[in-house]
């Protein structure tokens, strides 16, 4: 089913009786070419690009819960490509380019809204660092603009420019950044994969791997064993729990990240704004709620809820740059489980077990990476070689001394 203005009009006139479910609910076959473990954003994107770009459709996506029930529906929906390091920036720029063409590509309204992202600068040293970052972004083909105070005032006159502790001196602005309707991303990829023949099997938990002599031949699931030539794990948040079943230990800890939504307000915040002297970021949803968040709680957790010290810290950050939000009431807050890697960067790689592939370690930045993650994972699965922009995301990089520490904070998960 393709969506068009004509179709909507026709359905409106005929009582909306012609809409059909947009993906099937198949039972698993005994064997596939490729099994993707995890039906979240990255897993569904992988299936979609395998089918569309590489013509591989004998593929199953196994999902323990329901489609898109994990972090694809729990994030703060921001897209951007404002990284510094060579191992990261080209990857995220590919992702942003894919976001820009996504709705036309899978014919689904994901509400990609390039309203811009503004990272505030509060000191001379920070300006130097952000100018350097901006140059790295432009070298990768991305866009970056350094704004002075007047430039910021044009877009965001409500900021506390002369805050006693954190005066705003400037900002780095990426006009192509923005937000996306996150659930629609999962739905669009699922529909696109399903209509090309990929089986999306929900309520099917992987309970083990069939590994003989160092080769993975399939998985054990709650719906029985399923064999495949290639098994692609894509379960960020639960990576350690799943890969443990294959006998692997990962350079990953699971941490909880909280997010918040205020009551609906009239349009006030033009794009995404981040505080440069602490960790706070905010955007405004299409329904009017302020969507904001900050640091991870900082201790290992699989609970999808956090604690109050971080709530306080996030709110202090918000008040430091935009005191006007102090009267806004909080509507909802929740937590999601992050794969925090040792250097803050992800993995898209083969494992030491033939036929078993791993994608994870997305820390708190997985949403914006969804298209490129799926695309590069599909590339690795289909061709056997890493995609050039994802070639640094290797599992052995710590052993080689090739960590990708974007934040420069050292090899400890809760520092990123």
């Amino acid at each position, binding site marked *: 089913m393709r969506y068009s203005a004509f179709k909507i009009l026709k359905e409106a006139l005929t009582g909306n009786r012609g809409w059909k479910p947009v993906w099937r609910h198949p039972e698993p076959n005994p064997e596939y070419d490729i099994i993707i473990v995890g039906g979240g954003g990255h897993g569904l994107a992988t299936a979609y690009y395998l089918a569309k770009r590489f013509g591989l459709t004998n593929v199953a996506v196994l999902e323990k819960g329901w489609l898109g029930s994990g972090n694809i529906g729990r994030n703060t929906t921001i897209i951007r490509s404002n990284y510094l390091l060579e191992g990261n920036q080209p990857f995220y720029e590919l992702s942003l380019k894919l976001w820009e063409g996504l709705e036309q590509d899978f014919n689904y309204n994901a509400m990609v809204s390039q309203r811009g992202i503004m990272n505030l600068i509060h000191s001379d040293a920070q300006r130097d660092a952000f100018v350097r970052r901006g140059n790295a972004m432009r070298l990768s083909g991305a866009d970056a603009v350094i704004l002075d105070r007047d430039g910021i005032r044009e877009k965001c006159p409500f900021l506390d420019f002369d805050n006693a502790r954190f005066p705003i001196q400037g900002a780095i602005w990426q006009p192509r950044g923005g937000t996306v309707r996150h659930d629609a991303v999962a739905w669009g990829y699922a529909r696109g994969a399903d209509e090309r023949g990929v089986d999306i099997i929900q309520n099917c938990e992987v309970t083990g791997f069939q590994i003989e002599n160092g080769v993975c031949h399939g998985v054990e699931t709650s719906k029985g064993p399923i064999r495949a030539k290639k098994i692609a794990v894509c379960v960020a948040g639960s990576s350690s729990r799943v890969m443990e079943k294959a006998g692997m230990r990962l350079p990953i800890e699971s941490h909880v990240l909280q997010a918040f939504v205020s009551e609906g307000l009239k349009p006030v915040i033009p794009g995404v704004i981040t505080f440069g002297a602490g960790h706070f970021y905010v955007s405004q949803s299409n329904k009017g709620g302020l969507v904001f968040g900050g640091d991870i709680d*900082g201790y290992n957790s699989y609970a999808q809820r956090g604690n109050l010290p971080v709530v306080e810290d996030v709110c202090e950050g918000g008040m430091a740059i935009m005191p006007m939000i102090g009267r806004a009431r909080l509507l909802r807050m929740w937590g999601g489980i992050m794969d925090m890697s040792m250097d803050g960067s992800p993995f898209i790689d083969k494992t030491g077990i033939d036929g078993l592939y791993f994608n994870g370690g997305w820390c708190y930045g997985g949403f914006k990476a969804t298209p490129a993650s799926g695309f590069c994972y599909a590339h690795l699965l289909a061709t056997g070689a890493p995609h050039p922009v994802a070639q640094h995301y290797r599992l052995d990089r710590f052993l080689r001394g090739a960590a990708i520490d974007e934040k420069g904070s050292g090899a400890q998960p809760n520092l990123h």
Partner: protein
Amino acid sequence: MIIEHPLLGPRDAAEFVYLGDAAMIDRPDGMTVDDTGMHDYMYLRDNPAGDIRELWYHEQGDRSWLVVTRNTITHEITKVELARDVARRSGRSR
């Protein structure tokens, strides 16, 4: 979260700095272990869902290291020990 400090009683977890898995107490001898052994010690984690023993540093308190047994699914803390006692029990002299 409230951590029952063995010496100071109940303290807010915000006073502490978190390091991670208490297995890090058992650092291999850097002069004898190979690259892979040191890599595994430094970078790989069990990361269990359930009870975990982990290191917390009371930075804004008495600056002791604690070994806290905590459930990563419920955040319930069931045991708190001084890391010094844990290390000594495992045969470390200091």
